[in-house]
């Protein structure tokens, strides 16, 4: 399959007239600038969501209500979830996609440069609406990030703002996904066949299809919530004959693929980093691609494992239990392939590799608790307890977020042209890893003992573990401030050792074939590639 390419040299182009000052960012059409904007937006939302999390943990530091009332507590948990999922993790990976996909496939830019600009700038009003909902009458939405009906019908006007924000974010994600799919399918350099593509591009291609499939489903669910709230419909309102369980089915039909939307690009980043620092090729490349595809397909048939306690018929529970357990198989293949990639390598442990190994180790722990939760009779004990909170933070924080940290350390020299400070990177890693486990490991015990999630206050017997978790959380939050101030900021200001074109001797791929920092325009004419499609030959 050969790639279709524009003939750039047919017409004169105006790259040296790139806008400067604020125009450069507001009218940005360059994939690198837009990628930077996405990453900065994502980090801002991570900080806002993080402050909300600190509020939650400060209130739970000891039994009794000290800082917030229960209404505000529910607002904190709800907005922490929404902001982290839709504001921090998803845009973060889109930022990586914008920066790296054109560089990795040898394309000049993203396929639809102006739509790319629009999909970024759409997120700003949505982000403002989410973060600003605390200042609306009645406060922020407080129905949990899952927005279960009919509790959403009792919320104040900020619920409508929240729904609108999510519609906008959904539209932005869909545009971003179309852009990624079209770019990958049409703009690869000649010789870059699909099965020679870097794993990060593969995982994003599959993720983009997942996004296009499920974002409209979420839009439908929240639109029905909106019409139930204001226009007299009763889709989910039992008082009018509606079905609150149907909401959950629709939501989780979106929500479970969403989980993989947040983890597949992470798998892609890890699959780039492990071979680079093991100085070997990725073991089982083809099986990695197939495993990613299998996970994506399976993710559509497992949604009701979030609903084991709603009272499904026994056959339904059995089906969803079996299908959920099956996901362990392709996920296992990925873990085994990464370890086989390390095996007999010549490993070094710079910060990207530390985060990648940390990811594999801690994410797998979260994977195993997922397997335990998939067992419906055990889930009867654990559903809606802190065990679930521990589980999904192990896969989302130690999974998605750690992969993004790994990706930052790996690619920032290419983005900024300077090396980050290695010692500080290592401090960031160990500090985050230890604080993370202090925060979330005790939550497994709280959940096993039956402490429900989304509780502003709790029985005395849970006090010690909550205290430990809170201390861990403060330390974890502080670690991320350290990361920004002492690692990211200096590289953005260009302080540090100058980065060579390829700072990692084991790394492969076209992004290492261009100078550091990557020039404003790269691959204006399609490069000629070697047989493995990882080096430019002419």
């Amino acid at each position: 399959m050969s790639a279709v390419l524009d003939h750039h040299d047919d017409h004169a182009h105006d790259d040296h007239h790139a806008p400067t000052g604020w125009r450069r960012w507001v009218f940005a059409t360059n994939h690198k600038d837009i990628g930077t904007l996405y990453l900065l937006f994502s980090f801002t939302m991570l900080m806002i969501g993080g402050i909300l999390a600190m509020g939650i943990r400060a209130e739970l530091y000891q039994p009794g209500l000290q800082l917030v009332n229960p209404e505000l507590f529910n607002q904190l948990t709800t907005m922490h979830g929404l902001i982290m999922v839709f504001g921090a993790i998803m845009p973060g990976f889109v930022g990586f996609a914008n920066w790296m996909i054109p560089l990795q496939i040898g394309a000049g830019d993203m396929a639809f440069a102006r739509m790319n600009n629009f999909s970024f700038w759409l997120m700003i009003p949505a982000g403002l609406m989410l973060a600003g909902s605390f200042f609306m009458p009645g406060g922020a939405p407080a129905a949990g990030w899952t927005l279960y009906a009919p509790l959403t019908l009792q919320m104040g006007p900020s619920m409508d703002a929240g729904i609108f924000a999510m519609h906008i974010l959904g539209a932005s994600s869909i545009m971003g996904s179309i852009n990624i799919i079209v770019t990958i399918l049409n703009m690869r350099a000649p010789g870059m066949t699909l099965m020679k593509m870097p794993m990060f591009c593969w995982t994003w291609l599959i993720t983009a299809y997942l996004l296009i499939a499920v974002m409209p489903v979420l839009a439908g669910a929240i639109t029905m919530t909106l019409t139930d709230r204001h226009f007299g419909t009763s889709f989910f309102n039992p008082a009018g004959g509606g079905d609150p369980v149907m909401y959950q089915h629709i939501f989780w039909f979106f929500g479970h693929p969403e989980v993989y939307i947040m983890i597949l690009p992470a798998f892609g980043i890890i699959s780039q980093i492990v071979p680079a620092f093991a100085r070997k090729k990725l073991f089982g490349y083809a099986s990695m691609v197939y495993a990613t595809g299998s996970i994506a397909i399976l993710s559509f048939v497992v949604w009701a494992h979030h609903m084991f306690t709603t009272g499904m018929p026994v056959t339904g529970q059995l089906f969803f239990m079996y299908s959920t357990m099956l996901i362990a198989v392709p996920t296992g293949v990925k873990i085994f392939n990464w370890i086989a990639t390390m095996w007999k390598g010549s490993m070094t442990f710079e910060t990207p590799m530390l985060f990648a190994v940390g990811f594999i180790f801690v994410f797998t722990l979260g994977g195993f608790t997922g397997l335990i939760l998939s067992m419906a009779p055990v889930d009867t004990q654990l559903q809606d307890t802190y065990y679930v909170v521990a589980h999904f933070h192990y896969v989302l924080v130690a999974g998605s977020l750690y992969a993004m940290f790994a990706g930052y350390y790996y690619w920032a020299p290419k983005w900024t042209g300077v090396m980050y400070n290695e010692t500080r990177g290592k401090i960031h890693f160990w500090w985050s890893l230890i604080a993370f486990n202090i925060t979330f490991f005790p939550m497994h015990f709280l959940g096993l003992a039956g402490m429900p999630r989304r509780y502003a206050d709790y029985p005395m017997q849970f006090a010690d573990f909550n205290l430990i978790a809170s201390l861990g959380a403060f330390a974890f939050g502080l670690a991320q401030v350290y990361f920004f101030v002492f690692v990211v900021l200096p590289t953005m200001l260009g302080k540090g050792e100058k980065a060579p074109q390829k700072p990692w001797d084991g790394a492969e791929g076209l992004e290492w074939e261009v100078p550091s920092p990557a020039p404003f325009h790269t691959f204006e004419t399609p490069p000629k590639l070697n047989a493995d499609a990882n080096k430019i030959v002419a």
Partner: protein
Amino acid sequence: MTMGKVPNSRWAAMQSGLLKALLGLVGLSAGTAFATNDLPGGPAVNQLNMHPPVTAIAIEQNWLHWFMLILCTVIFVAVFGVMFYSIWKHRRSVGHKSQELPEPIWVELGWTIVPFLIVIGMALPATKVLVAQKDTTNADLTIKATGMQWQWGYDYIKGEGEGIGFISRLDPEHRAMSNAGTGPKPDDYLLKVDNPLVVPVGQKIRMITTANDVIHSWMIPAFGVKQDAIPGFVRDTWFRAEKEGMYYGQCVELCGKEHAYMPINVKVVSAAEYTAWVNEQQKMMAAKADDPAKVWELAALVERGATVYAANCAACHQANGKGAGPIKALDGSAIVLNKDHAEVISSLLNGRANGAMPAWKSLSDTEIAAVITYAKNSWSNQSGDLVQPAAVQAARNN
């Protein structure tokens, strides 16, 4: 059908002792200011595992969890043993040169098929438990639990005690302790209710769940039972408690601001005690049934209203009637003081502000009349105005 043994308490004690020592070392023991003890039937201090099971299903769930935990730990240690061995041996700093490995197809097939077989091995015992857990037939006693913002209603539907019905809510003192923030708290903090659900030991109890407003969830960890209570729908689950005693659980589906304050408390008693309890309840119900036609004196109705207010309203509107934050004040409220009672009665029966103030239909006509009269004649409100139960009854039947 017991598949395995529950770990013994000595192990649990050793674990919690270790933890205490650890906490003491860093000088962080939060509970030291006021010593907290284990709550039998509820959580233990720093409990590390599920509650000690008292039903066959809960024993199976515990067994399944141990089975999964051990299996997953073994796989985890094996897989990461390999990874850390590789990290140790195959480093550049110890001079290891990288070698590409052959990729024979059996490797990929192997680590697809073997996990698949392990997963089947996990699914088989789980299937057996799940099927048993869902079998709610042949119950000795059927009880309906209705979730409401923010209390549980229990109705004995079928079996001994049929017709008994009551509301079960958190001890208001515990709610006040929560608001007070710091301060000593009892072992059953946030778990103590006014009227526990009473059931006989050794009998199969079918719990039907539903809700009045939003989704709630009814659980007792020691019974291995958790079932969402969904408005407009009826769901069921069952348990057969093998041991007498008090058992505790909490609402586990986010249901609004007082989500953390609607505990579940089940008292399991002997058959004889249960029969005695049923007789007593039936006598009390006959005596307590307020006649809504009764005409009340102001003082008596205000006194009755004070108890209703303390139990239901003070959590939000505060004992001083001033409200807090978004909660409206009743003291000086035009709606409360209005000589026309229609709006205030409808507010109690139907709720206000989209359910921000919930509907209190579950209270009797006399209780609603009493609490309105109380509000009209307390704090700075001294209207001398009085609402008779008959007016509430008329509004309710409209």
